[in-house]
């Protein structure tokens, strides 16, 4: 277990170093998120946005931003022919765990910028901040988990870009539904107990996807 963790950290550190140096994914995600945010904010104009509208808009921005950047993690390895190097020097689960950690961190970093900007530009006040932060955090872990395993699958195919969103959407649908509902309630200021079922769904979904990913990744990775 310790070996798995330490080797996955080696992958994580390598990806982090590459990302800081060339910003492959960060630029794609940030540009998509910011342009969508500005477009949405201009189209809504000075209108007051109800939580029933704001919550889906926020999750649409988060979902498609994630889709625009999180697939790079495996596609880059295949395109630059470094995937075989990883296959030779690391056990499959260490590769998956390192890549998953990186995608989670990347989405968190994006949200640190996008979520406050979204609230500011749409003039939204979140009434129950604890529930809001928990829903967005656990929802992001779920979204990153889906994105990481789908990215591993589609990196082995030829029509990568189109497949990623097409495959991810149906699998991530429970995340979007619960994320939107939980966020809407948090914006409304509902008590934590009312947001708990959505939080539980997001948490359970994350556990299921992470477990399935850990079990099937070796078969995907070994071709």
């Amino acid at each position: 277990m310790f070996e798995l963790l330490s080797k996955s950290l080696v992958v994580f550190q390598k990806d982090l170093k590459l990302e800081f140096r060339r910003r492959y994914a960060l630029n794609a995600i940030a540009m998509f998120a910011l342009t969508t945010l500005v477009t949405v904010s201009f189209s809504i104009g000075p209108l007051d946005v109800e939580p029933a509208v704001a919550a889906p808009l926020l999750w649409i921005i988060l979902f498609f931003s994630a889709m625009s950047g999180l697939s790079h993690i495996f596609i880059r390895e295949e395109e630059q022919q470094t995937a075989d190097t990883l296959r030779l020097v690391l056990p499959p689960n260490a590769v998956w765990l390192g890549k998953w950690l990186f995608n989670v961190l990347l989405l968190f970093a994006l949200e640190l910028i996008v979520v406050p900007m979204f609230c500011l530009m749409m003039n939204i006040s979140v009434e129950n901040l604890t529930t809001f932060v928990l829903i967005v955090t656990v929802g992001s872990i779920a979204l990153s988990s889906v994105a990481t395993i789908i990215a591993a699958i589609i990196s082995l195919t030829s029509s990568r870009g189109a497949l990623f969103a097409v495959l991810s959407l149906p699998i991530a649908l429970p995340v979007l539904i619960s994320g939107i509902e939980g966020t809407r309630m948090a914006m409304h200021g509902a008590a934590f107990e009312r947001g708990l079922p959505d939080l539980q769904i997001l948490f359970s979904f994350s556990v299921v996807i992470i477990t399935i990913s850990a079990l099937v990744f070796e078969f995907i990775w070994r071709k």
Partner: protein
Amino acid sequence: MKLTVSGLWKRYGRRNVVSNVNFELNTGDSVVITGPNGSGKTTLVRLLCGLLAPSKGDIRYKDGEQELSMDAVFAHLGLVGPYLQYYRDLTAYENMQFIAKARGLSVDMPRIDALLERVGLAGRGKDELRTYSSGMLQRFKYVAALYHEPSIVVFDEPTANLDKDGAAIVYDLIQERPDQRMLILATNEPHEIRFGKQHVRIAQ
């Protein structure tokens, strides 16, 4: 260490790329695989390295009487091939630090420097691989493949992109520690057949 390849086939769609390959190899042995372009040399090498799954047949590595899993084989394997690249946005040192840590080894900088010097890349450790020429990249692949002193050495097109000096360095490396490792070499160069005790010729 013993490698047994028996009845090995690889099929893509209706086309057999590798057809019924059989041979045995022990530590100290060497095999050269030749054949025209597109005959399946690289596919055979990738099968032997566990980077592809065979359609039919067996590839077994044994250490004494104990059969090794592919993960265990990877720890003993050093591969150089045109399809095996390293991170161009990292320096040679950073690549080697990554590879050493990923293999669970300590980062031995004097050894890395010695290997870089051996392949004619002395003083270039701090440069990103994107600044290397194709010949320098090929030389670096030997540093990465030999760092862990592998007992199974697989060189696919070993002198691709190399000049005369580079080829001479590689020929020296091929002939190093012959009794302590098994050598698999795939090539199009007729004069490289001399490096193998066995010769597997693949027809188109």
